[in-house]
């Protein structure tokens, strides 16, 4: 693994991404993604789950480029509604509303939008460069992983979801275990015997992850929005050339924030399990702590837009690193993409780097291309995307319901799945209202089979002794890191009590 070979692969990947068909796929993905990001009630995770059935007819490379571009588009687009309408189009753009909307209210929507897109782009671009150079050695290193190491990495994913998402740790643990439990329905992967299906043949193939994701995130979100009664009123915004120059002139001042937010975001993204959402909140909190004028935050501080946006996009990129190198999703959205790997006939894992060069490097190359195209697109097309919000909710809500049903049906061509989707939708609504986090459930559901296989193989290797996770150095490191992250909420409470002040609650 030399630097030169990485450059070679990167050039090859850029070539793959620039072929006309892949370029068109990326642009369609970006347009769809930005629209998904703008629309409240239709999130990136759900949007990607809905599009998954449409990728069956594409090649795996085009399929992953499409879904990844949707993800980038959704991250860009989430900022538009946050700033102009004070409604976060995505969970990761909640923190952007804090200062973005006040700025728009003060008659500076152009500045807020430019700051959001530019910082989002910078965070993404630096993260992509880090990605390019971290991914190959990580994949090579991961080739040496055995079942205990894999199980320990998955433990890290679950621990970071509990430790970083905020909210009630008991509920996070419950949702993780519930996700793993639901994944055991169907066949036992080791012995091949049917299990946990209550004797029902229709449950024998298991409950499909995509259907649950569409129900939880798609319908659940619709029910919530219906209940709150969506009223969109906001500031009209466009970006003038003067806004661009004025905002860009400010950027050198925020270099420290940009660096901090990028590193934090990328790191949180790479951490299996958690993605852009906790990264954006933590970055906002950190920027406020480091700022000389913390009192200006929440009233229209440009830095309060830059910090969460940079981190969110860096985390979005970072989240794909464990997905492509280990086969472990770095975020709930990456979990949905990972579900696609199996459908496209790929086996996620470190071997992808050697066996699927076009797929892996095509994806990496497309990250460069799609983010450059994406930032130009959003900077020039704000009024077009903002206009999407003029579609009445009474048209949008039923449309999303219909699209969700089509998406859920297309996975297995089973009407039963539509009922499962409806049930998950009701569950998603109840869980969200009662603040049960959905991200751990989704990630656990995707990882369930792998986690069980890794755990059981490890225990068979060690003849039933759990010590195998402690006497192998790599596994031990992951186990210790998991323990630290898991105990983080308790530690955070302890520190803030000692310092005699209540720390910012980090919401999911």
């Amino acid at each position: 693994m030399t630097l030169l070979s990485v450059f070679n692969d990167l050039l090859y990947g850029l070539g793959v991404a620039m072929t006309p068909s892949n370029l068109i796929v990326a642009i369609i993905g970006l347009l769809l993604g930005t629209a998904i990001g703008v629309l409240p009630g239709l999130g990136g995770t759900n949007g990607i789950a809905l599009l998954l059935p449409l990728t069956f007819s594409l090649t795996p490379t085009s399929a992953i480029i499409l879904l990844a571009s949707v993800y980038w588009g959704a991250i860009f687009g989430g900022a538009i509604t946050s700033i102009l309408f004070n409604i976060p189009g995505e969970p990761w753009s909640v923190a952007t509303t804090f200062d973005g909307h006040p700025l728009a209210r003060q008659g500076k929507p152009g500045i807020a939008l430019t700051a959001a897109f530019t910082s989002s782009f910078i965070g993404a671009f630096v993260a992509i460069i880090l990605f390019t150079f971290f991914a190959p050695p990580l994949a090579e290193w991961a080739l040496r992983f055995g079942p205990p190491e894999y199980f320990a990495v998955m433990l890290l994913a679950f621990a970071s979801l509990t430790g970083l998402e905020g909210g009630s740790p008991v509920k996070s643990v419950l949702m993780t275990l519930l996700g793993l439990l639901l994944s055991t329905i169907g066949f036992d992967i080791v012995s091949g015997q049917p299990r946990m299906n209550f004797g029902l043949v229709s449950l024998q193939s298991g409950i499909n992850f995509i259907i649950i994701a569409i129900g939880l995130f798609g319908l659940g979100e619709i029910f919530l929005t219906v209940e709150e009664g969506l009223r969109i009123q906001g500031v009209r915004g466009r970006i003038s050339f003067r806004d661009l120059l004025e905002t860009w002139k400010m950027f050198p001042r925020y270099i420290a924030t940009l660096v901090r937010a990028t590193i934090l975001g990328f790191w949180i993204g790479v951490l299996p399990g958690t993605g852009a959402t906790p990264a954006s909140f933590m970055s906002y909190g950190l920027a406020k702590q480091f700022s000389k004028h913390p009192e200006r935050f929440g009233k229209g501080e440009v830095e309060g837009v830059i910090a969460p946006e940079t981190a969110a996009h860096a985390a979005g990129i970072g989240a794909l690193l464990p997905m492509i190198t280990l086969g472990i999703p770095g975020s709930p959205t990456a979990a949905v993409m990972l579900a696609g790997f199996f459908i496209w006939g790929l086996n996620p894992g470190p071997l992808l780097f050697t066996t699927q060069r076009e797929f892996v490097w095509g994806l990496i190359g497309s990250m460069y291309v799609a983010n450059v195209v994406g930032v130009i697109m959003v900077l020039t097309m704000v009024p077009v995307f903002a206009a999407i919000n003029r579609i009445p909710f009474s048209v949008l809500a039923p449309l999303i319901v219909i699209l969700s049903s089509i998406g859920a049906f297309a996975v297995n061509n089973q009407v039963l799945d539509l009922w499962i989707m409806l049930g998950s939708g009701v569950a998603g609504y109840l869980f969200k209202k009662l603040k049960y986090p959905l991200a751990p459930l989704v990630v656990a559901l995707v990882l369930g089979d792998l986690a069980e296989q890794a755990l059981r193989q490890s225990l068979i290797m060690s003849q039933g002794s759990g010590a195998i996770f402690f006497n192998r150095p790599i596994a031990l490191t992951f186990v210790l890191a998991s323990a630290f992250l898991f105990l983080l909420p308790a530690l955070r409470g302890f520190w803030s009590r000692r310092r005699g002040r209540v720390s910012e609650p980090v919401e999911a």
Partner: protein
Amino acid sequence: MKKAETVVAVFLVLFSLIMVREALRLSIWSSIGPGAGFFPFWLVLGVGICAVVIVVQSLRAPRAGDEPFIPPGAWRPLLVAFLPMVAILAMLRYLGIYIGGMLYLTGYMWLVGRHRWPYIVFVSILIPLALFFIFEKWFFLLLPKGILLERLLYGP
């Protein structure tokens, strides 16, 4: 809100009880190591314990100043969104996704959006038609068309 918290957690406890019965039918440990029931059994146990903790927590939480789980005015829009979904799914064999979707759009736009009828008719024909061309013609995804639409398209 507190009541809903308790109810959902109690439901999760019941769910774990049902699942634990399923798990106990399988072998937890075999001669070569963990069996098919090993993973499900410990997971159910974990879910159950967490759910019991939440039940206890919710019972001990103060009830004063509690808001209703669903605000009084929100029942109507929620039911308008939910009940037709159930009805259309139940009749999917006859309606299919396209006609079912058209009915759902019409009903929702009429009851919630209170749009004018020409607009409602236009949109609820346009969207299913567009979806039909995108999915059936462009992506070759065969969706349930229902007996009604099949009769219309291909004759009896």
